């Protein structure tokens, strides 16, 4: 579709639908289980929970005990926690059918106010209050909570990163001292706090760093605290920035990257496939940043990044509505959704919710359009290699780079191959290390899509490319050699099908001398199939015979093949000399040699070979006769009829 081309960010095609916010319905989202709660009339007319799949979607009723502030299910969905006041959280065991008996837990201290709570582990829950943290274990059977730990610290607001069980608290008046905590199976670990530098400190001091400007996310396996820094007043030219702090275990989080937005106004952030997607409401555009894609650094500590591409809007989204609003028609109608709507709320890592429409989307990245948007192919491949669903796109980039129209320079192709093979090499290394470390444990880590091996390149790129009549054969050979060079440089053994491709291309274009030179320098590694291929070329290129024999000799496991080759060329004596030189004279079949000697119709040769084997028989068995198992009767007869039976060796009679 043509209109697909101009967008690189899109919303998931099948959003999770839920009842939209209204006078009677309140909607909540739980970041831990990614569940949307639609609470009708305080729960009395039903609570509909929509999770990412069927299993996490349920509905139930509960008593209306006032307005719900927050509502979250435990990880196993057996216990429901509802906050209806600033002081207490109530619990309902859902597993026992309609057990309406609630139990509750109030926060400690008279003036304490609960800011929020989160399930951290199976039955563990943390309350974040303005005075600190209260960490509890819920015991549903007894309908009680047990205090695990409390921490006293003044709190403005908090951010929770469920996949890493990390909690980040904002403290001090300015709110810019951030304190991370790490939860692990009933324990709570306090990590070093750190301070976010503020553009200006207001006098008198007031809360400057706000919850909406801070998020946490996993990017390339590291936890980052992402802080949106708005432009300062009076500095209209300076756009807003996103500052990344990398969380450290032993030391305060480190400021590592700054993303230059070059815009100002309201922003929202998602992290998709390790890219930071920044949505800008005013311009209704989004931009992507990749912290691994380089940038400039002035001091060696902080790297400044520009967007990978110019900001572009999210691809327009049409929502399918089935008959709901138009009851007389059963067919679906489509309505365009307003993008960057004020009703949008963004959650980590990639969730966008429109509470008014009743939609939850995941933000997706479209890689195909990027191929034409990033003209620099090496940068494009760098970018693609870091994406999770990249294999087919990279292969199509490679394919395109080789054929006329979009053909790249050989130097660019060379760099691209090196990039692919670097990843390929790292994977092979990891694999062999894993193999050595523990054979029993199957590594759970899936092979990354960025690992593009020789078979992938062959199937999707080279086999198509060599058949393209518009490509010059010189270029084909150059590209294949470039790939083989790159593999060799990364010490990756080249597979036979690539050699075959090179050889076939050279042979089809009569580049025999070039092929000869490649073999001379062992660019094409020795193998039996390659030797056989060379033998088949002898009729069109004589030296191929010598090359094949040399190769078979080097393989040292192909002595039988060498004998076959020599006998087929009627070089019976050479074959015998060879077999003698490798010390296998006692085991070879006499019949094979006699047959070959007979077909030459060279009487002297036949005589010589016959006598040679008579002597062998004598040495091995003490008499010169051939035994029936050797099937040499025919040749004995031939010998007798040619030279007379008196010419046969007479066994020595020992007295």
């Amino acid at each position, binding site marked *: 579709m043509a209109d697909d081309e101009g967008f690189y960010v899109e919303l998931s095609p099948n959003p999770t639908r839920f009842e939209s916010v209204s006078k009677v319905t309140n909607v909540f989202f739980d970041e831990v289980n990614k569940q949307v709660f639609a609470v009708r009339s305080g729960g009395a007319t039903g609570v509909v929970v929509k999770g990412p799949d069927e299993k996490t979607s349920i509905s139930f009723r509960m008593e209306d005990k006032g307005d719900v502030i927050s509502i979250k299910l435990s990880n196993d969905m057996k216990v429901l926690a509802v906050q209806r006041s600033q002081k207490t959280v109530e619990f309902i065991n859902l597993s026992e059918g309609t057990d309406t008996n609630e139990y509750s837990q109030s926060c400690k201290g008279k003036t304490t106010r609960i800011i929020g709570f989160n399930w951290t582990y199976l039955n563990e829950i943390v309350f974040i209050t303005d005075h600190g943290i209260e960490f509890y274990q819920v015991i549903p059977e007894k309908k009680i909570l047990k205090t695990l730990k409390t921490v006293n610290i003044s709190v403005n607001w908090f951010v929770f990163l469920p996949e890493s069980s990390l909690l980040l608290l904002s403290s001090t008046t300015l709110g810019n001292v951030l304190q991370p905590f790490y939860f692990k199976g009933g324990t709570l670990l306090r990590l070093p706090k750190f301070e976010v530098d503020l553009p200006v400190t207001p006098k008198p001091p007031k809360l400057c760093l706000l919850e909406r400007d801070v998020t946490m996310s996993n990017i390339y396996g590291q936890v980052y605290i992402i802080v949106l820094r708005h432009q300062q007043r009076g500095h209209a030219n300076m756009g807003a920035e996103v500052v990344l702090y990398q969380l450290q275990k032993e030391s305060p989080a480190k400021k590592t990257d700054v993303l230059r937005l070059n815009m100002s106004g309201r922003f929202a952030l998602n992290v998709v496939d390790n890219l930071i997607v920044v949505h800008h409401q005013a311009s209704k555009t989004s931009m992507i940043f990749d912290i691994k894609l380089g940038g400039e650094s002035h001091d060696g500590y902080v790297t400044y990044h520009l967007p990978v591409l110019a900001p572009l809007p999210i691809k327009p989204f049409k929502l399918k509505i089935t008959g709901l609003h138009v009851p007389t028609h059963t067919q679906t109608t489509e309505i365009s959704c307003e993008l960057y709507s004020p009703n949008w709320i963004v959650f980590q890592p990639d969730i966008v919710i429109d509470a008014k429409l009743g939609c939850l989307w995941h933000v997706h990245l479209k890689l195909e359009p990027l191929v034409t948007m990033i003209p620099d192919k090496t940068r494009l491949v760098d970018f693609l290699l870091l994406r999770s669903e990249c294999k087919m796109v990279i292969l199509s980039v490679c394919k395109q780079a080789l054929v006329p129209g979009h053909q790249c*320079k*050989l*130097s660019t192709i*060379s760099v691209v191959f090196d990039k692919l093979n670097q990843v390929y090499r790292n994977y092979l290394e990891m694999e062999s290390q894993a193999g050595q470390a523990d054979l029993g444990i199957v590594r759970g880590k899936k092979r990354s899509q960025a690992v593009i091996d020789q078979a992938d390149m062959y199937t999707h790129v080279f086999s198509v490319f060599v058949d393209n009549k518009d490509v010059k054969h*010189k*270029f084909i*050979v*150059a590209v294949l*050699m*470039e790939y*083989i*060079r790159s593999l*060799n*440089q990364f010490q990756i053994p080249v597979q036979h099908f690539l050699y075959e491709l090179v050889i076939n291309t050279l042979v089809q274009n009569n580049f025999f*001398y*070039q092929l*000869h*030179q*490649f073999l*001379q*320098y*062992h*660019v094409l590694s020795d193998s039996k199939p390659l030797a056989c291929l060379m033998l088949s070329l002898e009729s069109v290129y*004589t*030296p191929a015979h*010598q*090359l094949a*024999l*040399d190769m*078979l*000799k*080097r393989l040292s496991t192909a002595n039988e093949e*060498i004998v076959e080759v020599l006998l087929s060329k009627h070089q019976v004596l*050479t074959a015998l*000399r*060879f077999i003698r*030189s490798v010390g296998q004279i006692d085991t070879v079949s006499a019949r094979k040699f006699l047959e070959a000697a007979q077909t030459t119709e060279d009487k002297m040769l036949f005589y010589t070979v016959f006598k040679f084997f008579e002597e062998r028989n004598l040495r091995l068995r003490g008499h010169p006769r051939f035994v029936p198992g050797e099937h040499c009767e025919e040749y004995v007869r031939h010998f007798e009829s040619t030279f007379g039976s008196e010419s046969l060796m007479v066994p020595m009679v020992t007295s």
Partner: protein
Amino acid sequence: MTNRSCITLYNFFVYNSNFGPREGEEHKKILFFHPADTNIDTKIKAVGLSEAVVKFTETFSDKPCDALHTQKTRQVFLQPEKDFWMVMTVTIPKSETEKDGQTHIEYHEDDVQDSVYGAVLKQAYNMFKLFMGPFTSILKLTNVQHLMQRLDHFFPRYLQTLRLGQADIMEVHNGIQFLPLDKNTYLRIQCFINLIEATFSQVKYTAFLYNDQLVWSGLEQDDMRILYKYLTTSLFPTALESEMCRESPKSGGPLPPITSSSHFGKYVTGPQNLNDSNNLGKIPHIYVNTDTRYEELNLIAYRALSATVCLMVEPTSIPGFEWYKKIDAFLGPQLSTLASDISEQYSKRASLPSDQQFKYIYFNHMNLAQKTTIHNRKTLSAIISPEIVRLIADINASFVKTEDDAETVMKTVSDCWVVGKKSDQREFYVVINQKNANLIEINEEVKRLCSTHFNNIFFLD
């Protein structure tokens, strides 16, 4: 002891009997004759004699006549193209002895080997063909006068460079020395050449040499063989000489221009000074694939340190001086790096201890690969006695007569052993200087040499 005279060139001529078939027109047959100042009668007689010999011998053999032995001279014949004959006559070395007050002159016929001087003649033709094209092609494109002009232009200078006294088995093999290299470096060179040809589409073929050793040839084997000979025996030594002269400027003379670039690349053939756009330098024309496509190309050689890239370009497609500058900017830095990487590898290999017990020559007919330790690498002249070198050529001449594998072991009066082996398309000659050795010991020694040096090829001993 007496002093033997050297082998010298007596005459050298090219003729075609069809050009002057009638009596009185004999001179028209002669296309080229050396020495030029020979009187016309002598020329006609020499051609007439050679015609007669050729005709006479035709009655005995299907193969044309190779050589004519006389007491004082040796004449070798070559018919390189139909009806065109090339003949070269060399003098037989002689020595004078005083016996009973009488001067006695002895001619050493065995010093001159047919196969060696036949090869020298063949090479003279090949060299002409490389630079001027085949006789028949010249005739087809122009006329007899033009052909004679070209012969006159080429041969007098070429014949001066012949070193007849030093001609030996190497002329017969006329092989190529390849540079031993590891696979990765080879692939880098290969890809570098591909890159040159992809970037500069005017370049049709490329050859890569390191010192006098070939690494890659885009030309076909037969053409490369001739070009290799030219590069290693003529172009490179001359370039090196002129470089030596330039590098020692006389005091007070102008200093050599300091190039701003950080590489060592410069043109061997082509512009010598990249700031002087008026002087493109001398660029040889060569003719390749004369049997098939008949291509006329410019040979542009570019060197950095010890590595030389020969670019073969269609004469009509060279865009001009800027192109040379671009090539220089592209080749210079990359070739310099490659050259220094190769030299690192090369020095490692060279420092390996070599067996000094024996000297050898190896030649493979299939890829023309040649190795020798009986010749000086720089001057290419033999470093062992000429008698022994001649023995090798004799063994070689006997090998040519048979298709089968063969082996010859010889012992000289000076107690030196010369062993020649032929396995399929490969020849191997060893000279062993081992006093009081017997045949069995020498046979064992050669066996050992073969098994250590040829374990990776199919070479039967």
